């Protein structure tokens, strides 16, 4: 089919007003939140369907004509998950799927993939219910993208990642067939768990068009704490100890000295710039349990030699603590022209080794590094800063060596952003040949023509 025919066929399905085919507008789809360079592969069009029936018709057309389709949520992905590897694609934008229906009687919500995660949280809260996953982008990222990447966030340390809350999905398969997997039932083992297969599949298996989310009761209260340590080992040790102390914090964030200094420079709020590491902790639950939880954490931290412990007693004090976390990244990024980052995780008892390794590698390659992360679940975000092309090359080597180390200690190169186009070269090393082959078999069984987000996750492992 010629491009013009494809444009007409899709316009016939979704209406002329729901397609974008001008070059001047299409260029906007060449980017996502991780893009550094403009892809040369302009898509044929971007379609904005309103119903799963329309998505099904588009997929039928794409399947018959072997046209690659890239489902797109909000484009805030961080592993180049929506990068255009090839020309001649259809971008399938799910922005119009905004439905949010809370069902308090079954503790579930039925939502469209284009619903913004923050709106789901807000709507659930009006019924006294809680949707916990909170990737840093939750104020603007869409639930479809969150599910496609099994997004994590701060509160995963206690509540688990997105996948723990996906109870069911409506998926349009590459052939155009529509399936409904999972249900509102708490128990459901009829057949393979396809719901969890599509969760985290990064748009490579089908188009998610509706979601059943599991909700839990909203915790009654929360309490924030800031703890500073004189050396990183002690901080890492404290994190591991807290996690096995019987208290499960709802947030346990870590910032190293580079980050603390950057955020203090930006905010001048009196953060401990001489500390080697800072933990930002939150406990939640019934109000009458909060003090006891905080006290338990204080005991552990004091025993392990914390140099400063602040427990917020007012909302303002809590807000002050979270300012540090919110401001840290933009503050750090101002220090260099660009950066490499990542989202590896290690078993929580190896955190000290991970942090030491990054510091070591920074010295070895003479590159400025910083590290922050959701340390309570072993997931860290290394920041590798560079100013010149030559430094960029060193930064790439540094990150490669760091990821090798992560794999060698039983960690994972991607905890919450997905493989995308960014981490394909670690795939075989991380999974082993047999497991990778298993993944490829699944991909080929569901998407035999490789038209769903081709290139993502598998790259050259799958041709045509």
């Amino acid at each position, binding site marked *: 089919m010629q491009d013009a025919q494809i444009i007409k066929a899709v316009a016939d399905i979704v209406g002329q007003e729901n397609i974008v085919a*001008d070059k001047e507008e299409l*260029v906007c789809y060449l980017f996502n*939140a991780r893009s550094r360079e403009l892809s040369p592969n302009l898509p044929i069009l971007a379609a*904005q369907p309103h119903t799963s029936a329309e998505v099904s018709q588009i997929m039928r057309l794409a399947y018959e004509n072997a046209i690659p389709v890239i489902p797109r949520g909000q484009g805030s992905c961080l592993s180049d998950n929506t990068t255009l590897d090839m020309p001649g694609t259809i971008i399938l934008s799910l922005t119009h799927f905004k439905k949010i229906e809370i069902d308090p009687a079954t503790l579930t919500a039925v939502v469209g993939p284009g619903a913004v995660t923050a709106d789901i949280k807000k709507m659930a809260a009006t019924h006294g219910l809680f949707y916990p996953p909170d990737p840093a982008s939750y104020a603007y990222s869409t639930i479809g993208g969150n599910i496609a990447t099994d997004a994590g966030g701060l509160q995963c340390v206690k509540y688990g990642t997105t996948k723990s809350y996906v109870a069911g999905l409506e998926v349009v398969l590459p052939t155009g067939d529509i399936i409904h997997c999972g249900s509102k039932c708490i128990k459901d083992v009829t057949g393979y768990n396809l719901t969890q297969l599509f969760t985290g599949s990064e748009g490579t298996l089908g188009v998610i068009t509706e979601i059943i989310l599991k909700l839990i009761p909203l915790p009654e209260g929360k309490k924030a704490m800031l703890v500073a340590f004189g050396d990183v080992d002690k901080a890492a040790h404290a994190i591991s100890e807290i996690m096995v102390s019987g208290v499960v914090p709802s947030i346990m964030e870590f910032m190293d000295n580079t980050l603390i200094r950057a955020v203090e420079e930006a905010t001048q709020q009196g953060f401990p710039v001489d500390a080697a590491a800072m933990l930002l902790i939150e406990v939640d639950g019934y109000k009458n349990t909060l003090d006891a939880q905080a006290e338990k954490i204080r005991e552990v931290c004091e025993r392990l030699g914390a140099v400063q412990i602040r427990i917020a007693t007012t909302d303002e004090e809590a807000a002050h603590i979270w300012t540090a976390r919110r401001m840290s990244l933009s503050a750090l990024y101002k220090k260099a022209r660009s950066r490499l980052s990542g989202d590896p995780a290690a078993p929580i008892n190896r955190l000290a080794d991970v942090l030491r390794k990054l510091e070591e590698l920074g010295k070895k390659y003479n590159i400025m590094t910083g590290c922050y992360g959701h340390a309570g679940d072993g997931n860290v975000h290394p920041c590798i800063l560079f100013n010149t092309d030559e430094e960029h090359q060193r930064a790439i080597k540094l990150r490669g060596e760091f990821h090798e180390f992560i794999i060698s200690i039983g960690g994972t190169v991607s905890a919450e952003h997905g493989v995308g186009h960014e981490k394909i070269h670690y795939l075989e090393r991380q999974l082993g040949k047999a497991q990778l082959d298993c993944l490829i078999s699944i991909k080929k069984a569901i998407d035999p023509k490789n038209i769903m987000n081709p290139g993502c996750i598998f790259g050259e492992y799958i041709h045509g």
Partner: protein
Amino acid sequence: MVNASELESIRKAASSCTYCGACQAVCPVFDKVGAEAACSRGRLLQLRLMAEGVIDPNASLAESITRCALCKACEATCSSNIHTTELFMRFRRAVADHTPLPLAKRIAFTALGYRRIFDLCLRLGAPFQKLLFKDAPEGPGSFSRLPIPAAGLNKRRLIPKLSTQPLRSRVSPVTSPRGAKKMRVAFFPGCMLTYVYPEAGKAVVDVLTAIGMEVVLPDAIGCCGTPAITSGDFVAGRTLAEMNIKALEATGAEAVITACATCGTALNHEYGMVLDDSPYSESWARLKANVYDFSDFLVKFGEINKLLLVEGAVTYHDPCHLVRGMGVSAQPRQLLAAIPGLELREMKDADRCCGCAGTFSAVHYDLASKINDDKIANIKATGAATVATGCSACRMHIEDGLSRNGLSNVRVLHTAQIIARAMGCAG
């Protein structure tokens, strides 16, 4: 082609976008259109790529950059602090320099600069408006008898009537304070409080005099210039800015009071874009520090006590140019909440754009109406019979939305009108 240094400056500013997409969650236009180019992230990328020569500054691009309500919601959420609306206006200027504005806009913006002609047209317009407009069956305003798209007249749109008694026939050039004089202030009413809602303009003067202000209504002021500036006609914008600065300075007033969010934002911010090397730049620098929105001024300098009973539920709509343009949102609420008998009911998303956005709603009426429908639904959900707001353009658009949605029993008032009543002013 667009001036090279301006192009580079636009490119540099647009390039600081990290494409996180936070703007999409707050953009009223993106909410309805859903396309990347219908939000700041996409538009900033378009501007960058235009400056880099990847795409042409053609009609399609201009259309995309024009499809922005300039509501500043994205600016408030941007972690890179990009002044998107200023960039879009500068781009519009670059385009306007090469592509003539539609004839209707050109004539209108030129006429704005000739204050007396503009005034005469609108005064003469009042008695003759029934030729062009028919009265709405209920509620305020009229409907256009003819569709004139270039002037933003859609046959379905409720257009407020021009008053047969504009503000200047109701208020003297100088009004003495009630009681001892505390300050001399200049009131900048702008076009809509002068010609369309003069009773609201009168209420502002009444309240100001009641708190001891001597109020000057300068003769030589005109339109604030926003319609020209947002359309990219910086030449007309500068003419109006200079005219207004000169006239306001000549009053010798200690403060300038605006009661239209858009006029206020123009006076204390947007003139900076058009003045460049103007001989009035210094005067403006002095002036802008003393420009106050009416409600802000009242909270800062007014002693208000013994308010009268005003019964009923009121919901307050935050005009974009007031909440984000001038940083005023708590003040009108504080004033309204202080009135005995008045129940202030917050609507959902009170600070979200109503869709009017001046010339935006004229060019994109259908889109502006969809955005407006959300605002109307949020107003309806409060059950309040009165909407208070501080911008006449919002007021006009919300009145239109209420009429389209069969809610003509809900009335829209300027905050000043409600306060004037509570203070026992005639207004």
